[in-house]
């Protein structure tokens, strides 16, 4: 199955800009460990992953009555802290729950992708 792993909020981690250089280094090392564990594990693959811009750089597009409106900021409060994502291929939810323990202690949302017809 494919899952979108959304890095929603800092969770148990302190905000990036309050960290010392050493702490930032430790945090980055966890992303490296996540890469390594996923690469080593059969059936697991990171298909894509990016860090995302700050919420004030988001653009929200709404179409109402045929009119397209653009506003700045996130679509909903719920993703105000969205900082990055991975798209991963894993056999099932349990494997995903195991490998994400390598990531920093962020709040995450795991969204399964629907299997679409070929």
């Amino acid at each position: 199955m494919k899952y979108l792993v959304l890095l929603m909020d800092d969770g148990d981690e302190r905000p990036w800009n309050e960290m010392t250089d050493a702490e930032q280094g430790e945090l980055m090392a966890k992303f490296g460990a996540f890469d390594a564990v996923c690469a080593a594990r059969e059936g697991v693959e990171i298909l894509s992953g990016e860090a995302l811009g700050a919420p004030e750089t988001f653009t929200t597009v709404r179409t109402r009555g045929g009119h397209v409106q653009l506003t700045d900021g996130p679509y909903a409060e719920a993703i105000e802290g969205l900082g990055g994502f991975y798209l991963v291929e894993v056999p099932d939810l349990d494997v995903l729950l195991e490998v994400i323990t390598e990531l920093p202690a962020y709040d995450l949302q795991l969204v399964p992708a629907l299997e679409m017809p070929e």
Partner: protein
Amino acid sequence: MTDPLAACVREEWGRLMALLLARFRRLDLVEDALGDAVERAARSWGDAPPDNPSAWLLATARRRILDQLRHEEVVRRKQPLLAIEARASYEMDPLGTEVDDDLLRLVLMCAHPALEPEAASALSLRLVLGVATADIARLFLVGEPTVAARITRAKKRIVGAGVPFRVPDAAALPPRIDTVAQTAYLAFTAGYAPGSGPDLLRADLAGEAIRLVRVALGLRPEEPALVALLALQLLQHARRDARARHGRLVLLADQDRDRWHRDEIAEAQALLESDAVRRPMSALAASYLLQARIAAEHARALTADDTRWGRIVELYDALLRLTASPSARLARAVAVAEARGPAEGLAALAAIEPMGNHRLDTVRAELLARDGQTDAARAAYDQAIALCRNEVETAHLRRRRADLDTRI
């Protein structure tokens, strides 16, 4: 019950579910097909059940699933653009030694931590034990459509979220076993101490939760959490016939101890002396173990006066070091009052924050009455009555309040 169909459903439902699920992996089809097979059996067996009832049910359910899959295949061929992938072979392996493994997979899938606890409990009772939706609704005091919807949602969630039908690695298994235990405990307490409604006890349904633990324990006989939980449940369940008389709640001290089920108490005592509870265990398992040892102290006392309250206070002290829940602190305060008098019990109560139900005020009222503070006791009973939502318990509280005038 000698009805061969009922007996077969009771004994074999979980295994048949697990077997069909292992083969077809289609949770949406399997339960319906098995339910349909049971309905057909009820119509056609009559006085002449087949020699091997479970094989009959398996074959009938399997045929039904195959029909459904063929039907889907036909629909797909008519809409080639919607074809997803060719199905794997439909052939069923013969009944093999893998069945127990499949049953464990089913138990773990139904109690997955990604499911809501209530949904996991309902799903476990339905899929592992074959308990009817109407009975699950009665156990949890909700409407039958609510339970049906809850089970349907949980099944969709399992398929959609990717909850596997798989036994996790050894490292990941212990916390999953803890979730299985919690799932069974939730179902048990729903039947044992209902917070509201007209029935004081739904003991028969609490018994189903015990059966769920027995199934899990049969698959993982050395798991401390399951052993301790079974002991705890047996000790509490053993008192079911003494806990209510003529629709009234009977307090532990006033229960007719001849009505306790001694065979179940003996089984629990043996579990508490087994090696399984001497090995390292999770905090959850340890809390079940301590609660079971407390229940065992009550069970070993031939009369209420024989109760070793000092020992019970020590066990509660250990329990509070693990989990400082308000209800455990409340129970400790009761034990303190028994061991050292009502004034010390009231002092132990003082530090407990309000719990959002009637239990704290009930205990306070009892201890104030025993301490001779009648007016304060009356006020505490009023508060408890205002908060209590179980009809039988409310009636009990009103009687205790009325008794205050005659107790002086």
